[in-house]
């Protein structure tokens, strides 16, 4: 009898009794399903209030708007998951889109691959600097953000670059849809699923999460923290490049200040609304899908519901805060930064 009590008490989970345990499980369930539920509720409200919106292709609109946000957010989530941040990924998206627009004509099908390799390297450079120079990522990627922006201006000649030919090599991604979901979005979903498998079922994936949870502990557990950081940033660059590809698929052109240049904040917001912890170590790529959908839905919903345009920013801000407050993982520690 005594020993059994000792066993319960010696868990160190003081206060985590059966009731607490149940609460924790429910918390975990909510953590897993919260972003999905919130998106469905929000979409449901829009659908009920303006039934024509859904009939008029609302799903397609939300999904196609969400596609580049999703891809950028997945990359960002990988970086957030190792406890860092990548402020340069949207700039990489634009640079990638410009490079693709320039090369698609002359190089054809090679161009997307080449551009993806290049932007992955850009991401890797971020990662190398963060990992081996041991500098704070926020400041570093703020710096490389400026460099990538300049590169976009210089490469494009500070003008809009159009795809001369072979546009159909990527444009099908935007124009074809399965179950009214455009391929650009499905590409994001596929990437998310692969990312989910990678994080759950591979040693590098688990190592990354370990770094985000406790880097010192990971180092002493022989996790290759530097290499994995480089990989996380390279993935961020790669996914930014995919986002750039969806932009070319959608618009057939790119410019330094055009489509994609404003993806940074929606990308971070989508990652966090999707349950990614900003302090690292918590990431579910599947939920990032719903994070991106939610972030994309808000401006569309305010328009579809005929909010006055002048109130839409206010609503956007409020919704972001409320949604994150609802989906946040609060279990880990009392200290929130």
């Amino acid at each position, binding site marked *: 009898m005594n020993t059994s009590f000792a066993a319960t008490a010696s868990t160190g989970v003081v206060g985590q009794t059966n009731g607490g345990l149940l609460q924790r499980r429910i918390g975990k369930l909510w953590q897993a399903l919260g972003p999905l539920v919130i998106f469905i509720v929000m979409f449901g409200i829009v659908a009920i209030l303006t039934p024509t919106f859904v009939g008029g292709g609302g799903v397609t609109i939300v999904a196609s708007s969400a596609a580049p946000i999703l891809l950028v957010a997945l990359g960002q989530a990988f970086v957030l998951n190792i*406890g*860092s941040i990548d402020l340069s990924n949207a700039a990489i998206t634009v640079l990638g889109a410009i490079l693709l627009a320039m090369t698609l004509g002359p190089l054809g099908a090679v161009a997307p691959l080449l551009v993806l390799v290049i932007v992955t390297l850009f991401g890797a450079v971020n990662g190398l*600097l*963060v990992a081996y*120079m*041991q*500098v*704070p*990522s*926020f*400041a*570093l990627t*703020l*710096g*490389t*953000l*400026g*460099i990538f*922006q*300049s*590169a976009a*201006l*210089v490469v494009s000649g*500070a003008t809009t670059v159009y795809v001369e030919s072979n546009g159909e090599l990527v444009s099908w991604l935007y124009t074809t849809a399965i179950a009214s979901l455009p391929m650009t979005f499905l590409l994001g979903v596929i990437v998310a699923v692969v990312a989910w498998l990678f994080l759950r079922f591979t040693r590098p994936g688990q190592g990354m999460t370990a770094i985000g949870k406790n*880097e*010192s502990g990971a*180092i002493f557990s022989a996790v290759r923290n530097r290499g994995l950081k480089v990989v996380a940033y390279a993935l961020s660059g790669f996914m930014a490049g995919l986002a750039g590809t969806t932009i070319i698929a959608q618009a057939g052109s790119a410019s330094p200040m055009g489509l994609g240049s404003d993806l940074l*904040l929606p990308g*971070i*917001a989508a990652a*966090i609304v999707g349950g990614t912890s*900003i*302090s*690292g170590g918590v990431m579910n790529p599947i939920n990032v899908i719903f994070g991106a959908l939610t972030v994309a839905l808000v401006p569309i919903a305010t328009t579809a519901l005929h909010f006055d345009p*002048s*109130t*839409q*920013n*206010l*609503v*956007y*801000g*409020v919704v*972001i*805060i409320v949604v*994150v*407050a609802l989906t*946040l993982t*609060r279990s880990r520690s*009392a*200290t*929130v*930064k």
Partner: protein
Amino acid sequence: MTNTLAKPTGNVSVDTSELSSAGLTRTRRNILSGIGEPVALLGALVVLIAIFSALNPRFATITNLQNVLNQASLPIIIGVGATLVILIGSIDLSVEGVMAASGVAFVLMSANTRGGQDMGIWAFIVPLALGIVLGAANGLIYTLLKVPSFIVTLGMWFIGFGIATILYGTDAYPELTNETLTQWAAKIELGLPNVFWLAAALVIVAALVLRYTRFGRAALAIGNNEDIARANGMPVRKHKVTTFIIAGALSGLAGILATMQMGGTSNHIGEGYLFLTLPAVVIGGTALSGGKGGVLRTFLGVILLTVLNNGLVLAGVSPNFQSALSGAILVVAIVAAAWSQRGRLRIAK
């Protein structure tokens, strides 16, 4: 088979003073490394000034000094708030939104080309109060709902911007009609622009607060270890909310000043200030993880970046390369700062 390599001293009890003095020698070294960063920053500033002066003799003139300080003033004011927030380990991204809200409120309550009432002193009080309210909202949502400050303030950025948009309405662009107001900021007093004196005064006050008040020391304590602070019975939540209120008020003030500087405003008045100020805070050496840094460093950081941007224009560097150069210098600066501390086990987030 005892292999004694050194003669034992035979002193069994350990003298405390010996241990303490060991501590002291280490202190001295750390004080040196502590001021190392600002010294390096000043060094970098001197080098930049030397280079730019050589490239264009007009760089090192009183007029340009006044110009640089005038431009640096608003980022310095915002930087004071940003530094306080970063010191407690949080971040405030709402700057531009708060600036917009208070800027628009300010112009609409002053004598302006849209007509309406000149509310006198209330034209200053209400926008500042707006900044305080938004700052308080930041702090309260952050501490009560435990939403990361990054997200709360990101949302508040849009909320502030939204408030500005609603206040602005659809009428014509409002301009201040009072010349005293529009000329005040850049007016030269005692050799330097008014707005710089104001910014400098705020920096000094903030530096003194950080050095000499319980509030200031508590900021460092919370940034160092929030859990210990809480276990010590420190009013952590109250402190955080207060810090965000101060940051909100300073953003509000910056919104008013920017409006005065422009002679009018729209909801876009704050654009660009956040991503000008944050790098300056970081280059100054305030750690984003909290607990380390200060407003004087931020002051230096802002001056450095402003000199850089000004110098690039004066040196005739193509605008295409300007952001790359600023970015590259930011990268070099933080790499240089981190270089000596590299180690196998060092964690940099």
